[in-house]
């Protein structure tokens, strides 16, 4: 029954091979060369669909294969891949979004003279994410995890001639590094405490899911929290969310890729993959839920006050990832994966739509846009669908997944449900603001906006369709998705109350946004005139960046300066002293080498006297 799963290892190989070919060809590959990358992702997509297809249709066994990698003493490390329902789902999400983004980039990056490099990086990015998804043990996963980080660095800093892009790339790399360190420590702890030093997921499942008590609860909590730290860094959760909005400096297709399929999804996926460890520790679960809920509402409020179209979307991603963490924290892994699944489509759609807008009007400030709905029809209606899906309006995909999360939250912790619901209201409001400011009203600048070429709009249409239908795999009336993902018979507990509340909240947010930003029934400065401090706080993202600058960057910078001075004057000083003393000695000896016999004689005499004195002196010592 596992025909295609045996070839799952090929899925990441295609994009990585495309990366190798494109890098080897260099800039000479040109625009046709870029199609190599797109073709490779298409192959991966087809194979992923086959794998997922056979898992959906039949009762396929989980397939895993690994080979012996390293033998250190009596510890052996292996590397391998595993195909489960969870990984096959992720394979489809990653390859599908990646393929569409690839296609879209053919249009978006057409005028860039480093286009082949871009597609090469994108291939490596996709390939490492797929490797991360397929990995059958934590160590292999960690390798790909780091590769994903490297690729995000390369791609966010793709336009490295812009200083902001360079800074953003460095920030993304360094901030996620903090999380990666946590994950590394967690892996080392697991390696230390696990029987036989096993790191593969099936053994982890056996040890933690059975509550066998092999590992003490305290250690389990530490391991779970450290793994979560890794996820916080990669998935842009508070307090390590600061890199994600800055990563908007990269090309827009990359933002779509980072936010929908690769990179940020990795954090949620990591927690889902090691979910047994979390479930073994209630404290860790609480932390995940609280951080998730806080991030959801925290980022949503910031999103209300931003003016850069991509930054609004970035904060919405942070907020939606918060939802996923919340779902994981309240113990509903299927709800989190479901939201990851739907979010991938509508967020990729929104980012690609934003890219299309930027491509048309050459600005990212939504205050300078307006009335684009008439000029960019396809972009407008697809973006609208994405916005509705994100706002959680039925029957779009986002509604069903958000509903699943809120239901799970209500079951566990009503307060988290309230937080989630309020965040959903803000989400609807800022998306309405974004949509109405950009697409309706009168144009606010005189640029000649135009619709993007077909190669860019087709992915938009495909994603728009998916953003409508993807939600129907799991509704309160149909628990197919959760059942498929976990293998357990889903408990039907669709709550009508939650559905009504979440739909009403979404509609209310959109209606309010329409009143303010389209109809003008409520003045726009209704809040800013009364509470200028609050608006300023939101516009400056709660001054988190400034706080970090003050708390971490500046002291570390000062420490760096001190160490630099130490290096300059003490370490280098010793080195310089050694060099200079050798030179001085040489110069002195060169002067002795005068070539005059009498000087030599005198030297010999002095030596003799010293020798004689030394010998005579020894007697009296």
């Amino acid at each position: 029954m596992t025909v295609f799963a045996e070839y799952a290892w090929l899925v990441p190989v295609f994009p990585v091979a495309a990366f190798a070919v494109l890098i080897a060809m260099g800039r000479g590959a040109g625009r046709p060369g870029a199609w190599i990358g797109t073709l490779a992702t298409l192959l991966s997509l087809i194979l992923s669909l086959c794998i997922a297809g056979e898992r959906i249709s039949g009762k396929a066994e989980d397939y895993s294969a690994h080979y012996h990698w390293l033998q250190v003493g009596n510890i052996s490390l292996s590397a391998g891949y595993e195909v489960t329902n969870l990984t096959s789902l992720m394979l489809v999400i990653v390859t599908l979004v990646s393929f569409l983004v690839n296609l879209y980039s053919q249009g978006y990056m057409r005028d860039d003279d480093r286009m082949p490099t871009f597609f090469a990086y994108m291939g490596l990015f996709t390939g490492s994410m797929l490797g991360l998804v397929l990995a059958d043990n934590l160590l292999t996963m960690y390798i790909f995890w780091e590769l994903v980080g490297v690729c995000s660095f390369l791609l966010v800093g793709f336009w490295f001639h812009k200083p902001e892009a360079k800074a953003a790339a460095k920030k993304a790399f360094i901030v996620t590094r903090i999380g990666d360190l946590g994950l590394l420590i967690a892996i080392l702890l697991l390696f230390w405490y696990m029987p036989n030093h096993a790191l593969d997921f099936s053994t982890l499942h056996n040890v933690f899911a059975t509550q066998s008590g092999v590992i003490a609860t305290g250690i389990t909590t530490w391991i779970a929290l450290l793994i979560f730290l890794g996820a916080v860094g990669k998935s842009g959760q508070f307090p390590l969310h600061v890199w994600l909005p800055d990563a908007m400096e990269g090309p827009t297709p990359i933002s779509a890729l980072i936010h929908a399929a690769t990179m940020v999804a990795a954090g949620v996926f990591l927690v889902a993959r090691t979910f047994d460890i979390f479930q073994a520790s209630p404290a860790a679960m609480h932390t995940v839920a609280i951080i998730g809920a806080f991030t959801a509402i925290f980022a949503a409020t910031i999103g209300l006050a931003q003016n850069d179209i991509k930054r609004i979307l970035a904060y919405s991603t942070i907020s939606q990832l918060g939802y996923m963490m919340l779902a994981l924290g309240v113990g509903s892994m299927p709800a989190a994966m479901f939201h990851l699944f739907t979010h991938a489509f509508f967020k990729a759609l929104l980012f690609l739509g934003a890219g299309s807008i930027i491509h048309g009007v050459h600005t990212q400030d939504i205050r300078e846009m307006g009335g684009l709905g008439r000029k960019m029809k396809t972009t407008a209606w697809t973006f609208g669908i994405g916005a509705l899906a994100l706002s959680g309006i039925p029957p779009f995909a986002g509604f069903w997944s958000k509903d699943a999360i809120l239901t799970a939250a209500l079951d566990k912790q009503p307060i988290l449900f309230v937080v989630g619901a309020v965040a959903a209201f803000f989400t609807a409001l800022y998306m309405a603001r974004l949509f109405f400011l950009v697409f309706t009203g009168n144009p606010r600048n005189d640029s000649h906006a135009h619709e993007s070429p077909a190669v860019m709009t087709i992915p938009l249409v495909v994603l728009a369709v998916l953003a409508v239908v993807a939600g129907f795999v799991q509704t309160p009336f149909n628990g197919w998705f959760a059942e498929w993902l976990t293998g357990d018979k889903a408990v039907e507990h669709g709550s009508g109350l939650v559905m009504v509340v979440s739909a009403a909240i979404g509609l209310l947010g959109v209606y309010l946004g329409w009143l303010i930003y389209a109809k003008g029934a409520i003045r726009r400065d209704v809040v800013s005139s009364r509470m200028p401090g609050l608006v300023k706080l939101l516009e400056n993202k709660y001054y988190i960046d400034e706080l970090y600058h003050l708390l971490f960057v500046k002291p570390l910078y000062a420490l760096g300066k001190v160490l630099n001075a130490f290096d300059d004057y003490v370490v280098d000083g010793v080195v310089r002293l050694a060099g200079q003393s050798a030179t001085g000695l040489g110069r002195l000896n060169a002067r002795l080498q005068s070539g005059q016999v009498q000087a030599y004689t005198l030297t010999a005499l002095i030596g003799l006297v010293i020798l004689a004195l030394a010998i005579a002196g020894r007697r009296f010592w």
Partner: protein
Amino acid sequence: MNMLASYLTLAAVLFCIGLYGVITKRNAIIVLLSIELMLNAVNLNLVAFSKYGVHPSLTGQIFSLFTMTVAAAEAAVGVAILVAIYRNRASVNVDEFDELRR
């Protein structure tokens, strides 16, 4: 025993005068003469030890004859080198000779 000490003292004085001449004199001829002085101080030692040494014998005196012969040969070679240098440089000033450095 006392006699030996005075001979040795005389030899040491001679040797030091010779050494002083070798190191300080600028004229190469004088330097050669000073070397002879040092050699003769050594000869004096040899003769003194052959007469007043612990095991007196004639060997020391014969050796001093050898030394004189060698010294004569050495002086001949030295003067020959000096003549050659003088032909090249038109000078016998030791300060100006730094061929060893080249």
